[in-house]
């Protein structure tokens, strides 16, 4: 058996400790060890963005980060975006705009959009499309997703 390593990190503002094998990705740790299954595996090689999380303020594909790499760092996942009784404006905008169909890519898109709006609160349509180009959606044709992000930007 592979020896597991101890990792201490902050996830959505809470201190979290876990053991993981060096080969386990952050995505695998989030889903299988911590049962935070909002981040999805679509490709496991950084091409679909369904596993997007924010690591120390930077948008990453959690399938391309090792679990052991987040020791001492801070991770934001989809589970931490809403307040207890209030959705984040991006989440509201996705619902108002019907910007999801099957919903499997939605957590990744919301994390990407959040990372964008945290840095650039008033993006143009082109900037939204450029920023979200790392997230694949196969259902919507992106039209309503782009509108939702632009709406969320004007709401905040």
């Amino acid at each position, binding site marked *: *058996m592979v020896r597991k390593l101890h990792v201490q990190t902050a996830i959505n503002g809470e201190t979290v400790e876990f053991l993981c*094998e060096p*080969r386990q990705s952050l995505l695998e740790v989030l*889903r299988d060890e911590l*049962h*935070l*299954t*909002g*981040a*999805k*595996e*679509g*490709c*496991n*090689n950084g*091409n*679909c963005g*369904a596993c997007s999380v924010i690591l120390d303020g930077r948008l990453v594909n959690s399938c391309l980060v090792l679990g052991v790499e987040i020791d001492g760092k801070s991770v934001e*996942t*989809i*589970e931490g*975006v*809403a307040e207890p009784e209030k*959705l984040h404006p991006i*989440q509201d905008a*996705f*619902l*108002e*705009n*019907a910007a*999801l*169909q*099957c*919903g*499997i*890519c*939605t*957590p990744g898109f*919301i994390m990407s959009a959040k990372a964008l709006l945290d840095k650039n609160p008033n993006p143009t349509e082109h900037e*939204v*499309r*450029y920023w*979200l*180009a*790392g*997230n*694949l*959606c*196969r*259902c*919507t*044709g*992106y*039209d*309503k*997703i*782009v*509108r939702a992000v632009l709406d969320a930007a004007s709401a905040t």
Partner: protein
Amino acid sequence: MSENKEYKVIGTRPIRHDGVDKVTGRAIYGADFQITGLLHGRVLRSPHAHAKIVSIDTSRAEALPGVKGIVTAQDLPAAEDKMADLGEGAVNLKYLCDNILASDKALYKGHAIAAVAATNPHIAGEACTLLDVEYEVLPPVLEVRQAMEPDAPILHDNIRTSSLGETGEKPSNVASHLQHKKGDIEKGFTEADVVIEREFVTGTVHQGYIEPHNATALYNPDGQLTVWCSTQGAFTVREQLAEILQYPISKIKVVPLEIGGGFGGKINVYIKPVAALLAKKTGKPVKVLMNRADVFEGTGPTPASYLTIKIGATNDGKITAAQTSLAFEAGAYPGSPVGAGAMCVFAPYNIENVLIDGYDVVVNKPKTAPYRAPGATNAAFGTETVIDELAETLNMDPLEIRLKNGAKEGDRRADGPVFPRIGFIETIEAAQEHPHYTSSNGKKHHGRGVASGFWFNIGLESSVTISVNPDGTVNLVEGSTDIGGTRASIAMQAAEVLGIPAESVNPTVVDTNSIGYTAVTGGSRTTYATGYAAYEAAQDVVKQMKARAAKLWDVDEDNIQFADGEFSSINGKEEQISFRDLSAKLSQTGGPVVGRATMNPAGAGGAFATHVVDVAVDEETGKVEILRYTATQDAGKAIHPSYVEGQIQGGVVQGIGWALNEEYIYNDEGEMTNASFLDYRMPTCLDLPMIDAVIVEVPNPGHPYGVRGVGEVPIVPPPAAIANAIYDAIGVRMTELPMSPDRILKALGKI
């Protein structure tokens, strides 16, 4: 049912009922499912496109610590060469089983050979590398025309071509030949002033759903098998499991979890029976997940095809004859959608003389599966390109020639059915009047193209129950897995009947033990047929509630009427009670009210679409950019217009991917060389403009609110529309999909 009828709920845009779960990451999809004691399975797949399996030695893998069980085709019950009825049509059971785990031959790279259950997925993966399989490699057949050659290597020794009631004598890769005839084809071409005949080739493309296939299975000692998974149809999974495992249907429960896209690709089972076999062997719950390469190489894409299209017209633009030969790759086992392609190929046009031949051909590629209007996109690429060329030759506007020949109510399709009221003409008119079509498009290297499309839609079986809560809300239970907002579109139809807000209906999708049979979420049927069942179940609730009001007021049931959410007595007295207030009195008036309905409606009505696209072609790089896209479509009646627009926009973009980028690229050994999202390039949002979805509403007479299915037809026109736009831009007719930069440069003579 009139077009101008005022509705309170239908046509509005409520927040979908499952929305909060899906924007917060709380919705549980198949791969998210957890259960105590879980083992993880991994499937070993063939590295060869065509090979005899000589032997499988599992001893090294079994010795790896953490490995709990290994299965091969030996663990499947011996499958008979017989037809199994799976509700969606008959399937040869031997082929079905062999596609789950290969018994004697691997017929494509990625074909499942064996599977391992272990304490974690990494160990299961390592164990797969320790399985020793000896193959005798055979030459692969990778293309439909090659497979049809008389001396082609044969995939199945037992296949004889079934052609118009006759069976061939020699083994062949052509599994079947079908034909539709109408009128006199020779006479039709004689009457034509212009005849255009062209050949077309389309590549193998994948549905590209973002969620890979998944399954968790548990066998209990009492023989109860439970499977949690994402699927387009829990009941069809149950049927397939019962046939493949030869297991009683009553002992199988399928629990559908949220599904991350399907587009037809999550109807057939792949790893679900494998998870069940591993669960039985180990006595533990086993979760099997595919990775992306498994999805590309081990699940059904939609077929590559080769077609010829010949259409003749008179000088005034009347089409007199149309002929086609459609050869579709079925993949490793018979069963391509060539039949559907043959139904759709000339369906948009009322043509007197038609001859359609279709060929279902096996090749060493994954067994194909449905993909959004399966077969229709391949066919329309040919038809709509030739119609464009006819219009150009006759100096007609391309929408005008479609308007002149477009099918209407009462016209007969070449494959038999007579159209009920349909809205094809209205979609063409909507495109003609749209500011996109009336705008100018005169820049160099810019082009505009149009194309239309047809999909027949289906009805099939659905069940719904509705129970009334004391606060005037209702719980709606359904068996249609929600792949794109159908909880909302089904609930809204019940809400309309009951006179309550959409938010007062709580829809739940349940397992196969908890609702009556419900067919797949596919064929653009769910809002139509399950929505129809919700309408009828709500009517049943109204009927029972009327009896309660009658009891309350001590009058005859016939004297109670229901309108705008209020029950009232019509025998003179001013008695009135709202649905909500009466809901609070059910206990006093006889107990709970549960409405129910089962449906198998036949009047799905046809769906038509007409698209307009502007492109820019870069003659240096061959890249085609989509500048503007407008899609008009007859939705019959849009229940939730946002999700109808979403279906149109999503279908268009899949069609754009098919047109410009997507294809399985094979090497000579039959290996797919681009089995990742990096190399199989689906459109990103940076590749696209907004997609203008224009909903046309010509009510379907086969549904109480006039609904037509909307999901599939929007993928049909894009490849042809884009090909026609490319021609407009650079003067070259593209006849092969995808129209990728290298093919554009070749067509321009630059490489």
